[in-house]
């Protein structure tokens, strides 16, 4: 089996197949990226609209202090660290309106730092 695979590799057949697969992957629609900025003491945007079953990538940035994004209904959370971009892939599995909040105590206004995810069918 190994020998056969080596022969194929030598012939460039597997490599070619890999490229073909990559091309297929590239042809698929890219996952939507939503950038969320966390700052004292608000998320921007505060409302995130998603479709059930459609994956998105949430990108978090902050220029302030360490904060957290937590959407407990989706068991999804990420640390948000100054100077870094944090990414969280989310595939909403239910419709409705759900809370997200900062779950790292970040100052005077921390307790009001929340938003909503609206998921439609």
């Amino acid at each position, binding site marked *: 089996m190994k020998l056969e695979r080596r022969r194929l590799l030598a012939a460039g057949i597997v490599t070619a197949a890999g490229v073909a697969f990559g091309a297929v992957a590239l042809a698929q629609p890219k996952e939507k990226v939503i950038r969320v900025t966390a700052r004292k003491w608000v998320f921007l945007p505060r409302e995130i609209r998603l479709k059930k079953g459609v994956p998105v990538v949430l990108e978090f940035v902050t220029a302030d202090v*360490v904060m*957290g994004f*937590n959407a*407990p*209904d989706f068991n999804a959370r990420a640390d948000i660290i100054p100077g870094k971009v944090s990414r969280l892939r989310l595939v909403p599995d239910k419709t409705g309106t*759900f*809370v997200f*909040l900062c*779950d*790292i*105590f*970040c*100052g*005077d206004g*921390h*307790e009001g730092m*929340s938003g909503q995810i609206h998921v439609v069918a």
Partner: protein
Amino acid sequence: MRQSIDRRDFLKLAGLGGVVFASGLAGGAKFAGAAQDDFYFVQLSDTHWGFNGPVVNPDAGGTLPKAVAAVNSLDFQPDFVVFTGDLTHTTDDPKERRRRLAEFRDIVKDLKNKNVRFMPGEHDAALDNGQAWKEFFGASYYSFDHKGVHFVAIDNVSDPAARIGEQQLAWLKSDLAKQAADGRIVVFTHRPLFDLYPQWDWATRDGAQAIELLMPHKNVTVFYGHIHQEHHQMTGHIAHHSAKSLIFPLPAPGSQPKRAPILWDPAQPYKGLGFRGVDAEVQKAEYEITEYPVKKA
């Protein structure tokens, strides 16, 4: 023993009898520990000294002194008093934080009972990992024994991410290892150790690990604060009881879209605020909770 019985008789006569909660597996085999006196302690929580919001509490500067006076005027003094966190309201200014902590300390010095235990809340401790709080009140997690009950204070707030942390969990494991399986254990903490309502940050990120360590012990009861209202829940055989606040009440978990203070009702001042007495009946591992208002009606 005598004082506790007298106090219970008094509570019944005064129509103040509390609700009795048995910690999980009580009522079975006789407690192997030495015969112990029953006793009672007082829990105060979430005083948020320094809070300013006239529509929420127009007597923010007077509520804590009134609560201290109310504890002092109890017909029987408790064995000890415990504050389960958020002694002060948060501030980004370290100097102001220390000023509030100092004022709080000076106000509660007026308690007749000098056996007072303190715990931090996230408002006191999360912005500096408990540094200022410790300057005033010492260790943020500890244990002590009182009349046959082992009390454990767990700090789930000095980490701004609401974690107890590996170091403290290791200490907890070692502390609990010294206790008999049927020992009477009472835990004080600020946040709920279980996921009460994470959507409002009413949880401890690694609280499940603490509960796992407590589970082998048959008689465990947890008293906590943070949610500014009474709440009673079991996780397995472990009972969890949250206390009222002494600054403003909060709505029931998930009862409205946002967690926001319940506004002051001029027709019913101090409504929803208060403190509690806990009568510990050690042999039965039962805890009778009596809620007291800030001001008598």
